[in-house]
């Protein structure tokens, strides 16, 4: 199953908010070590899709099947889904601003999450090594003892990506990672994501076409809550429907 096969299977999900159908019979698959971009105009259901996969929103119908055992994620809570191996990065950088970069990363490193285990937790050498390794990967090795609230916007985004990688998820859901970043920061972000996608699935929701082009991966276009087109970026940008609803505007 290495590299091929299905990691996440979204099948026939629909969700309605007060009569507004945010997701409409949405189905698609994501493979084991795949980089995928999801694009679509505002209100296409990109963020709602992430909310459903991570357990924040319960869909009205449909299934989200996960992993080799094809476990249904619907009905599981956020923490459980996160422990099952799905990491999520929010649109705004959300790190724990009152805590140091080190504390943020250590909290994220994969370990027993049960309160008692956490209470008596002593970082082992491998945990510290993991934090060091991640910090240098995201370019924050020098900032470990600084409070993360003092970091720049881009650094916070990387820290959050670092925390996601520390969780060692099988699937990484990343919501608009390039928002508010400078050109240099975007390049670094692209590198981090591409590197991450070598060993796990990474799904990037993004508005910015240039950024998606740089990712150089398969693209899924969402529109009004369902898949409009799928394929390489060049392929979908030639699609007349896509041009009409999204690119033409």
């Amino acid at each position, binding site marked *: 199953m290495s590299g091929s096969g299905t990691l996440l299977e979204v099948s026939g999900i629909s969700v309605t908010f007060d009569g507004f159908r945010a997701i409409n019979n949405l189905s698609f698959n994501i493979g084991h070590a795949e980089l995928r971009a999801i694009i679509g105009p505002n209100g296409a259901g990109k963020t709602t899709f992430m909310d459903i996969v991570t357990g924040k929103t319960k869909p009205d119908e449909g299934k989200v099947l996960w992993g080799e055992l094809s476990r249904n994620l619907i009905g599981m809570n956020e*923490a459980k889904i996160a422990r099952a191996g799905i990491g999520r990065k929010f649109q705004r950088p959300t790190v724990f601003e009152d805590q140091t970069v080190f504390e943020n990363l250590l909290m994220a490193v994969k370990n027993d999450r049960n309160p*008692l285990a956490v209470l008596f937790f*002593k970082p082992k050498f491998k945990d510290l090594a993991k934090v060091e390794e991640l910090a240098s990967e995201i370019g924050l090795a020098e900032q470990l003892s600084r409070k993360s609230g003092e970091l720049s916007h881009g650094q916070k985004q990387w820290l959050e990506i670092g925390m996601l990688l520390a969780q060692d998820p099988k699937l990484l859901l990343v919501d608009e990672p390039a928002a508010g970043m400078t050109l240099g920061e975007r390049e670094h972000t692209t590198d981090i994501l591409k590197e991450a996608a070598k060993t796990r699935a990474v799904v990037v929701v993004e508005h910015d076409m240039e950024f998606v082009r740089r990712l150089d991966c398969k693209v899924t276009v969402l529109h009004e809550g369902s898949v409009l087109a799928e394929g390489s970026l060049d392929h979908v940008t030639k699609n007349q429907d896509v041009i009409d609803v999204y690119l033409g505007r």
Partner: protein
Amino acid sequence: MDMFKKNPSLPVFIAVLVIFTLAVTFLSEAYGAGAISTSFVKTLGKTLCLALVAIAMDLVWGYTGILSLGHFAFFGLGGYMIGMWLMYARTKIIVLESLANAPLPPTASEISDAIGTQIFGVVGSSEFPLVWYFAHSFWAQIALVVLVPGLLALVFGWLAFRSRVTGVYLSILTQAMTLALSLYLFQNDSGLRGNNGLSGLQNLPGVDGISQDYISIWFFWASAFALLLTYLIAAFIVSGKFGSVIRGIRDDEARVRFLGYSVEGFKLFVFTLTAVIAAIGGALYYPQAGIINPAEIAPIASIYLAVWVAIGGRGRIYGAVIGAAFVSLVSTWFTGGQAPDVNLGFYTIKWVDWWLVLLGLSFVLVTLFAPKGIGGLFDLISGRLSPNRHGVPLGPDKGSLREEEAEK
């Protein structure tokens, strides 16, 4: 150790507490110069218990962001549990003495009835209610000090946190619990003597020959020791990864959830643990106070608790201790009639009446202008500054630290 590194105040606190305990001991009527009256020793001992429950409040509010306005209920329950044994055991001794001269030796049920009449006469009853089932056993009641408030907190917390009740709604819910509990205890048929409460708790059964001078200082030591232990436990909890997680919950609980931590589990753990700590504080406090009644559990008491922690500075353990000790001692001074009246010519300020106004005013002023509280004064000495975030708090949640409360 990590605990000492992350809490530089820990050795200072231990030193201050030890010196304070020794000083009070050598100035007490029992073991020293007699410069401190026995009643003031009791006041100081009670103050240590209040500092202890303030630490619990700081853990649950200052560190985890749950503004519980019900922790004094757990404190009171702890007091009731120990009070039941104290009252039972002492009444039994008195009853046995009076029955010793009877022509026939009394039967067990006669003794039980006599104790019942003594204790429940004030509420027109002589039957032992079911809740007194274990009152004859010291160890059972000691266990109940921990178990009753602990179970109440566990069940209440489980229901509230599972439904993801947060912020103001949770505070209201905890107030409702406190109010319900105190109203229930006010009833004569609650089994705990209604508004009479439990009294005579200062008299320890079996030590009749020993004066209150000694008993008061023993309780003072026990309170100081319990405070020390609580401080150490709190420092241990907040310094490691557990501390990171609960501060994360305070500032942004959704993010903690997506890291795979069960936020509800952590909240429940902290809520229940702090309820147990509060109950132990109450079990030490009320034998020194001598009496406990349902008014002690009134919702306002739990609000005071939050005020102490706010005035001391939340999110730092020594802040809670300072806030509780300072405010309760000053309060004793003002309401005890020792504070001199201020004659304005047209009106005389009597502090007994005006103290609450002063307290309320200082609470508002501290919240507005010095959110770090009294504890923040130490930051001036150590040079720790607040970050400049242009007014943005440290996280999206209601309980998150404000810019002025945080440290660089």
